């Protein structure tokens, strides 16, 4: 990055603001550190390498789904069917792997097909929202019901186990390092490459001001469809992580994750109105939700109070982020 003299000067004047402009996920990072510390206080064991590996392998699915959501939010859209897409891919790959015998070839082939299913769901959403110009929030709510219906057709009842080869690999180690960290590294590389693509800049330009982007000559409809395709792709990847973690198929598993993914995007410092998003923030937002959940558990909250405390904690975190943002824009 080239840092000019003007940059350095602006650090002196509105230091916090320019920092936040460059790294909008800073508040989320501070919150993560605070949550980790709190987790450590209540249960020192929760900061061990093993526990953290567990945290990652459990919440990698939500991380992926939050990333998926980020790309549509960039363009000012939203996808309420991301969780249903995840469910559909989850049950489809589990059924296919089982039907094809559960060998290495079957697993890889099923995963490839899973990616295609995710992309197909994204394409449907993109066509409905961008080409037919239906309201994103309602249209994707409708497609979510549709995708859930398909998932229920593929697997009417939850519980079909995934082949051992698949979940053992996901939960196991490779050359002494947990597989999750390979997945995280691959994800980091993928996100880095994506951030340099033309489509991401175009998505953000469309989300910033759709009319301006149209007048600039950007293919607005195509750009928004591509956003939904990216969303479908990452929803499929989220399904792989979830399948690896739960080791079974469940046609309704993703439903409640959709709004968590939206919450993660906002917690990470992205603007839901579009044009201002950060995938790093969304990752941190998803991990925040994970850490809140584990904190509620480690604090020894009685089970009937867990939802209450969880909701309260997420509200508090959201408020902290908003306050930081408001100070920066004041």
């Amino acid at each position, binding site marked *: 990055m080239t840092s000019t003299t003007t940059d350095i000067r602006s650090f002196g004047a509105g230091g916090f603001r320019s920092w936040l402009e460059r790294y909008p996920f800073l508040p989320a990072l501070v919150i993560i550190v605070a949550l980790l510390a709190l987790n450590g206080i209540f249960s020192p064991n929760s900061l061990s390498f093993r526990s953290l590996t567990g945290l990652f392998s459990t919440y990698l699915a939500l991380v992926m789904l939050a990333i998926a959501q980020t790309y549509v939010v960039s363009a000012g859209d939203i996808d309420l069917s991301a969780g249903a897409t995840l469910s559909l891919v989850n049950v489809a790959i589990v059924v296919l792997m089982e039907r094809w015998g559960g060998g290495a070839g079957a697993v890889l082939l099923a995963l490839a097909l899973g990616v295609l299913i995710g992309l197909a769901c994204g394409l449907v959403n993109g066509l409905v929202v961008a080409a037919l110009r239906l309201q994103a929030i309602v249209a994707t709510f409708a497609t979510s019901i549709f995708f859930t219906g398909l998932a229920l057709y593929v697997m009417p009842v939850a519980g079909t186990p995934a082949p051992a080869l698949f979940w053992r690999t996901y939960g196991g180690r490779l050359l002494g390092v947990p597989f999750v960290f390979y997945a995280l590294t691959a994800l980091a590389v993928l996100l880095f490459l994506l951030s340099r693509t033309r489509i991401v800049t175009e998505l953000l330009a469309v989300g910033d001001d759709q009319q301006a982007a149209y007048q*600039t000559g950007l293919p607005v409809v195509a750009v928004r469809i591509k956003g939904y395709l990216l969303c479908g792709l990452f929803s499929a990847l989220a399904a792989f992580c979830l399948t690896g973690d739960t080791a079974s198929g469940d046609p309704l598993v993703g439903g409640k994750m959709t709004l968590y993914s939206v919450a993660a995007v906002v917690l990470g410092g992205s603007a839901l109105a579009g044009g201002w998003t950060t995938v790093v923030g969304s990752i941190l937002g998803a991990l925040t939700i994970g850490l809140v959940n584990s904190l509620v558990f480690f604090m020894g909250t009685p089970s009937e109070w867990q939802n209450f405390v969880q909701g309260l904690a997420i509200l508090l975190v959201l408020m902290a982020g908003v306050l930081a943002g408001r100070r920066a824009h004041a």
Partner: protein
Amino acid sequence: MSKLRLNGVSKAYGATLALRRGDLEVAAGEVHVLMGSNGSGKSTLCKIIAGSVRPDAGQILINDKPVTISGPQAARVAGIGVFYQELSLANRRSVEENICLSALPVKAGLFIDRQALKARAARYIALFSQVAGEGFHAQALVGNLRADQRQLVEIMKALASEAPILIFDEPTSALDRAQVDRFFEILRGLKAQGRGIIFISHRMDEITAIGDRVTIIRDGETIETLKLSDIDPATVIRLMVGGASDMPAARSAAPAVVETQAKAAISVRNLSGKGFRDVSFEVAHGEILGLGGLHGQGQSALLRAIFGANPVTSGAVTIGGERYDAKSPRDAIRRGCAYVSGDRGRDGVIRGRPIIENVTPIHYLRDRLMIARPSRLRNKAMPALEAMHTKFASLFHPINSLSGGNQQKVIIARWLIDRPDVLLLDDPTKGIDLSAKADLFALIRQLAAEGLGILLYSSEDAELLGNANRILVFNGGSVTRELTGDDRTRYNLYQAAYEAA
């Protein structure tokens, strides 16, 4: 050879003809100025060339070959670069990204070529490096820049298209002298390269400085194309105004100047705020004070500030002899101030709700109504609506079922249930038909006769000349001239409006 030629291009929105007949010919190596008053069809003409509006009829030729421009993308391919008056920038992207946005340089067909992007943007940023001002650099977010700097980015973006035909729709409205001079130097360079340039500006001095030929457009029709070196500004204004320019317009209709009564309905002392500065005037009971001038010279900003919708930085407003500082519209309404905006969708209409709910919100506020019986409300709403000759099937139909003119009547009627003392009209007839306009002005005059103080801003000069007792002409946010009595002529109004700021 002509770079661009339009033959009989027209465009209608519903029943209103935005452009009746547009003929235009731009030669290679010329700056062709488009001139016309507000709403004469300049912008429609530009948008047709830019591809964001599709013409109903007519022909567009580029280099003497007929083309169809199906959208902004097609226009870019056809070699047309546009500076949009309302700017087409992404506020949260950097300056360099905005400059290159229409054609981002890529490598491997996928990744943005940062080096190429930086190099390309730097070329255009360097053009203005002397005049861009503090804080302007390639990585700055456009949203953090000043208005003039944003306008420079839009200019750079248009230049970066390297299109043989360039359209600049009011590119200099926020620029200072040095920036304009630099921009004109660049334009002269482009002329020498043989580009065809369409230029719109309301500053007469700029037009004579840079223009080669001028096409006058009036009431949606291109009237005449002239060489600028052959004519003087007065001729241009006379052509824009049309035949009857020297006649005091509609004098028989305009009421005489009202004698100032002991107590003014509203008086404004040295008021400054965002978009206007140091404005002072008094409006007597029964007087209609017109605010004239080109669009966006501070008239709306002033009215909104008086109504408490925009902040005031200094100065004072007195209503009925009492100091009045509205901090919010709610406050202003309680003190007897009414505001009707031409932008119904933004400021007036409660969409999808019944007419009765759209007539009564002010009544609720002023009478502190908590619970209301429909029959009682009906008795209050009906006379107000009838005074306006509003046509509607039932009070319980949604307001969207009405035409634009009738919607506006409903909005005005909401202020009539409880009489205000001061009525602020912010271009109230925008987009409504002629008969509704006539009803509206009949009512406004009646209200004035009943003793209201009325402030009227209109983008149509005929409305001001026909109704206002006095006219304050705004230019660049302050009042530059006051027209009273026999001075209220079309010619004087134009001349004052087009004077260099």
